[in-house]
């Protein structure tokens, strides 16, 4: 009797949630399944039409375009988000001064309402006044300098126009390089740690910038169309693929949404961070004794130990990606040329624009099955890769 009472009390506690679940999720879920076999303009009663909605889906070019956009977004944004969040979490896990401050700063973007974020990024992506294009224009000018150097060197080989346009910049960088080399050879570099650190930092930074700009210059030579576009991309208004030679590649507009989706990566990073702090320190100590370097420790200890959380984040990202709606709805309305019409927008349009609730339900069910399939796939793939310490 006491057990029964205890059970009844437990159920009483979860009853409000259970009722809400059954009413607001369970019922629409099942009703949607039935409607997917019906022709159902919202102002009429649903009429059973068998598999006609599913048959129409197979030949619907607009649906295929939306599905393609969603899968493409998932294929790029999920891995990118996972890697970025993990990298961020590792930085946030470092024992540095002001660590709580950095954690808060990187998490804050996640708290901003989606609509506000979308409006903010609309301005960032404005081709004429946007912050991103102002920065890109600066980078592009620097890259042009390297490109000019390349083309001048090529010209020099043929005996024409030897380095003339780039000679000023080349002289300045040469002088700076010589000065740095002199300093590095000097007594202060050998004896004073702070000077050594400072010069080394400058050297590393210069190398990184030079490598990036060099890569850009090579790309400039390889892909003139895209590189010219990079001087001032049209972003959300441009439906052409990047890179331009791959017609299946994401459009500039989709790339913009992918970049924007990284805005909320701080939330994923915080979950990683919680797990990172759970990794036993003695594992690292043992690795140190064995002489493992940072990369080996990361690959052999950190990643396996946090693998359950990586799986969790990937599954959540898959689900989230297939529900993307607000940002493209506000920022692009699905355009240009349906290149950002995600599947959730397609469902919305079919329901509220074209009044085809039955067809939209069929799409929703296909989407549901796709998410389930991808989640099962993620679990299957991860079976041998995910390490659960408790097992």
């Amino acid at each position, binding site marked *: 009797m006491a057990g029964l009472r205890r059970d009844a009390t437990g159920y009483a506690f979860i009853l409000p949630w259970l009722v809400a679940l059954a009413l607001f999720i369970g019922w629409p879920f099942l009703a949607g399944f039935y409607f997917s076999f019906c*022709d159902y303009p919202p102002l009429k009663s649903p*009429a059973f039409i068998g598999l006609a909605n599913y048959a129409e889906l197979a*030949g619907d*070019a607009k649906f295929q375009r939306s599905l393609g956009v969603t899968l493409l977004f998932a294929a790029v944004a999920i891995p990118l988000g996972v890697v970025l969040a993990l990298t961020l979490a590792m930085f946030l896990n470092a024992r540095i001064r002001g660590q709580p401050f950095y954690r808060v700063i990187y998490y804050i973007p996640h708290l901003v309402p989606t609509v506000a974020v979308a409006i903010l990024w609309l301005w960032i992506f404005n081709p*004429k006044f946007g912050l991103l294009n102002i920065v890109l224009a600066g980078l592009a000018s620097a890259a042009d300098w390297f490109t000019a150097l390349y083309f001048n060197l090529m010209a020099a080989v043929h005996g024409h126009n030897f380095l003339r346009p780039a000679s000023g910049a080349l002289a300045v960088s040469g002088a700076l390089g010589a000065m740095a080399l002199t300093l590095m050879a000097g007594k202060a570099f050998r004896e004073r740690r702070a000077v050594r650190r400072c010069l080394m930092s400058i050297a590393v930074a210069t190398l990184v910038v030079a490598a990036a700009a060099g890569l850009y210059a090579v790309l400039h030579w390889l892909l003139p169309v895209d590189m010219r576009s990079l001087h001032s991309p*049209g972003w959300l208004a441009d439906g052409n693929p990047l890179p331009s030679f791959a017609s299946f590649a994401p459009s500039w507009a989709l790339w913009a949404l992918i970049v924007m989706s990284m805005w909320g990566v701080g939330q994923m990073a915080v979950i990683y961070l919680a797990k990172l702090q759970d990794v036993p320190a003695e594992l690292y100590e043992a690795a140190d004794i064995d002489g493992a370097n940072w990369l080996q420790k990361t690959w052999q200890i950190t990643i396996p130990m946090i693998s359950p959380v990586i799986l969790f984040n990937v599954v959540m990202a898959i689900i989230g990606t297939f529900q993307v709606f607000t940002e493209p709805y506000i920022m692009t309305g699905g355009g240009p040329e349906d290149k950002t019409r995600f599947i959730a927008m397609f469902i919305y349009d079919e329901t*509220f624009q074209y009044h085809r609730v039955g067809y939209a339900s069929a799409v929703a069910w296909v989407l549901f099955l796709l998410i389930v399939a991808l989640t099962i796939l993620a679990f299957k793939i991860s079976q041998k890769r995910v390490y659960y310490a408790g097992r």
Partner: protein
Amino acid sequence: MRGVHVGLAGLIIAVFLIAWLEMKPALEDFDPVRHAAFKDTWNKRVHLAYWEKWGSFEADACQKMVDTFNESQGEIFVHYLRTSQVDRKAMLAAVGRDPPDVVGLWNANVVPFAEGGALMPLEGLMKQSGLTRDFYIENYLKLGEFEGHIWCLPTSVMTMALFYNKEHFRNKAAELRAAGLDPDRAPETIEELDRYADVLNEFEPDGSPRLMGFLPTEPGWFNHTWGYYFGGKLIDPETGKITTDEPANIRAYTWIKHYAETYGREKLLRFRSGFGTFDSPYNAFIEGKVAMEVQGVWFPMFIRRHKPQMEFGVAPFPCAAGVPGPRSVMEQDVIGIPRHCKHPAEAWKFVLWVQREGIAILSRLQGKNIAIRNPPAWFHQGHPNLELEVFERLALAPQSFIVPNTLVGQEYRDEMNRAFEHIWNWPVELEKKSALEGLTGAARQAKIQALCREEVATTLAQARQEIQARLDSKIERRRLQKRSAD
């Protein structure tokens, strides 16, 4: 444990009590400030809910119309409820069997609402009240019809024309004359429009536009209608088949594409990203970034609101050579009575009054032409739209057109927008562009159009296939619905 039970039960009771005690606002609630003038008759009147769109001065015009009706009699009081996305909300209200008494929609909503049985047919009521077809300009009445019934009646109309900046024309008067063009009038054919635009264009030293004579992307609201100005149509009136890729339409969209290629798609994209919103001083035409633009009858009111001193002219939008004109696309806002509304008889009294008297108040205050043939004399006296005559002429022009109401009206519009975007954005291969070197003027334009024609034709053919498939599917589903109902 007993405490837990008491707590849970108490919580449930409290929730139900709050829900029960909540006083929902009702239409009949008397506001002693706003409704002071109606104090004596308030409780004797039938109160109607009228869901309608509009903002700013256009909403004031609608309110004035409703106020005039309320003051004109003591039997009915209409509450104008300003509603954003009125079509979607009205649809949901109709599904929930709790619609307003009167609803203001767009003509594009007539088919889905009528087909779903959400509206009352009005032709019987019109006949009883002596409201005849010849009371209206025919095209405007047709926009509220579907399958032989009248479901909605006109309120606020839309007629389109070419707006041109007279100051830009004056500044370039010598160049225009040198090109054989008259700076004191608007272009009269599409070919002339191109020549005017070519002279009016101004560019920065790096080749990016500072001022564009004409841009077919602005304002971008009627991308599906360009073919009509080249003699094309969207639907074959005989067969009901979709005709998106008929030769005249291909010609129209190839003409549009030549603007993107002649002036640089990417440069134009950056230029356009600096334009402000429609209802702002940074509107491309109002700010002076575009010298000629196709816009609607409402536009003069917005121009004078943001830049009262602006000198502009209005003329019928030109047609291609050989295509009879003048012509304009005609659309409109409509008013209807939802089925299952609470007071259908009183709602019709209001709708009838709107048609006979209210429509003139609304159209005049919104600065628009009117859907009826013989408006009252005071309608034209002091009308705020000084360019009204052009729009009235266009509304009566035999070549002016409506896009016929079909089962796929919205889908058609959306698919044509996509086709337009593809045609505009699609990049002509660099190798092909080398063929343009050395060419100028008409020869260059002809070459660009020749380069683009195939892609334009393919895009429009794809659009036709998709829209036709949608239409066929809807027709088939209607058949299945009917069979299921039988």
